[in-house]
């Protein structure tokens, strides 16, 4: 089955933060202008129609960047985006636009992503109006309905973004993305700002939409319980690379990558009572100074000599499971031969 959406070998770099002195010195020393950071390395990712792919990973590892590339907001430096197996960049303009409309992103920072001078009713209804998706309703009614769906009072449609609380703004962002009836939704921390009851409401909405309309999700989140609840598969990212991809239940039951394990171990538990937290052990990796070999090795309890030198590749490790760790084959999990879908 062709995936609905696929990223192939996507790389993304940014300019390095530098001060003027450093820049001048670099120039005088005749260094080439390649002072850039790579935040996304040769990443492949595929999402099947109707699937919810959870994306978790360390803060700053490039999840949002990946999400933006997927949503077509950042042009990747290398690599391709495929939609229904076709290269988006090679599509005729009209089709490209339609595809782009079908891929929506809910931004991590709802405040910044809302135009401060537009009333939220407009913000939500505008695109639908423009693309003729109002289905007979007036734009105001349409926006009101969406507001209701995300648990907001439709009377608030008249307000400006700054008049809302953080969670309310997050919901406006969700409503805006849903308004254009996307087929693929990139949710970047979309429910993090919501209290659990509203969060539940929104998650239910997401699940409904998936059932009714086959909506597909790339669900970026730090909240592992939400990911666990919602996602079919989970991709784990570390410093610009996918380090593990696995069906959700399996991943949570038996994480393959040491980072995944560290993540699952750090989840605070409601019933544990007051806990004494421990500082992180090992150095946190930075894209500005990426460690040699496996990026996780400075923090990895199992790091070996090879980890310091060699970058492990993302390999199939079991049916439908992939991991990038030198340890994994040694863990005794036999690579399966009949893996049906690419990561």
């Amino acid at each position: 089955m062709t995936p609905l959406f696929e990223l192939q070998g996507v790389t993304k770099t940014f300019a390095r933060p530098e001060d003027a002195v450093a820049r001048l010195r670099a120039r005088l020393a005749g260094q080439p202008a390649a002072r850039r950071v790579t935040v996304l390395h040769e990443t492949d990712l595929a999402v099947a129609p109707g699937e919810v792919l959870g994306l978790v990973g360390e803060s700053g590892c490039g999840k949002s960047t990946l999400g933006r590339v997927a949503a077509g907001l950042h042009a990747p430096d290398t690599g391709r985006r495929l939609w229904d197996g076709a290269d988006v960049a090679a599509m005729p303009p009209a089709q490209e636009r339609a595809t782009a409309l079908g891929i929506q992103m809910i931004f991590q920072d709802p405040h910044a992503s809302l135009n401060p001078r537009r009333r939220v009713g407009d913000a939500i209804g505008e695109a639908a109006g423009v693309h003729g998706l109002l289905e007979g309703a007036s734009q105001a009614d349409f926006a009101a309905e969406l507001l209701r769906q995300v648990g907001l009072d439709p009377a608030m449609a008249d307000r400006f973004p700054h008049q809302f609380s953080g969670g309310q703004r997050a919901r406006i962002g969700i409503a805006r993305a849903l308004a254009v009836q996307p087929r693929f939704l990139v949710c970047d921390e979309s429910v993090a700002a919501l209290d659990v009851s509203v969060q539940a409401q929104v998650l239910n909405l997401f699940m409904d939409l998936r059932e009714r309309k086959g909506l597909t999700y790339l669900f970026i989140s730090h909240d592992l319980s939400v990911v666990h609840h919602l996602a079919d598969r989970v991709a784990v990212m570390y410093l610009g690379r996918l380090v593990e991809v696995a069906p959700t239940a399996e991943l949570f039951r038996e994480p393959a990558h040491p980072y995944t394990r560290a993540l699952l171990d750090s989840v605070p538990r409601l019933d544990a009572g007051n806990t004494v937290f421990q500082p992180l052990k090992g150095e946190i990796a930075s894209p500005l100074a990426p460690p040699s070999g496996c990026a996780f090795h400075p923090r990895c309890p199992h790091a070996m000599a090879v980890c310091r030198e060699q970058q492990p590749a993302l390999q199939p490790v079991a049916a439908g499971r992939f991991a990038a760790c030198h340890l994994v084959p040694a863990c005794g999990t036999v690579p399966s031969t009949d893996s049906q879908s690419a990561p």
Partner: protein
Amino acid sequence: MSEPLLEVQGLSTHFDVRGGTVRAVDGVSFSLGRGEVLGLVGESGSGKSQTGYSIMGLVDPPGKVVAGSIRFEGRELVGLPSEQLRALRGNRMAMIFQDPMMTLNPVLRIGTQMAEAVLAHRKVGRARALEEAHHALERVGIPSAGERLRSYPHQLSGGMRQRVVIAIALLNSPKLFIADEPTTALDVTIQGQILYEMQKLTRETGASLIWITHDLAVVAALAQRICVMHKGKIVEQGDVDQVLRAPVHPYTRGLMDSIPSRNPRGQRLRTMPAFEAP
């Protein structure tokens, strides 16, 4: 524990908007002892952030603290002259805001924004302030701190910005620390690091925390007491274990029921009967 660090009594913060008044905070009372951690949870839009702003004296117009008193270290903050309030802010009490992208000045380097927080309250050299900033960044788990000091906010990920904001608040070792959803953008390992730092802060300096969050598990792990807000009012407050184990108010109960891990995976989550927004 003689006198509480912070004593909030009947605090009401209202916004006059066209066609009515939004009672964002409506008669909130609680007190916070020294070294105590208070978890503030509640519905989205229930007034948690505004409570924090009210304490800091930073409510945006047209919002106004219309009633109540806020006593901090024995001093009444409502009506305090702005210069005295300024001297307290960022020094004796600090707050981190909910939206990390918008809270950092987009045109100033991280280092500048951190150093000035030091310089505003202490007579030290700029180099020394930057050094402290560097250290604070490392405490919140930001690698390559030196280079990050030279970054601009837009060059950081959401979680990094959030950590920068936390680091700024930590700089002057405040006595009262109001954190508005400080770890939402952080993965659990980094969150652990932050929580570790917070615990250290309370332990070592006797600082008190107001921890606004939606993550009940974090509250359970960190806080001694909890306040549950709904529509501008505190509907339930008490000892964390008690409240979370045996919630009394129906809203709190509904909240607990909605937690995904308490629901069968992949099924519809339990929600509360519509609580219309304020």
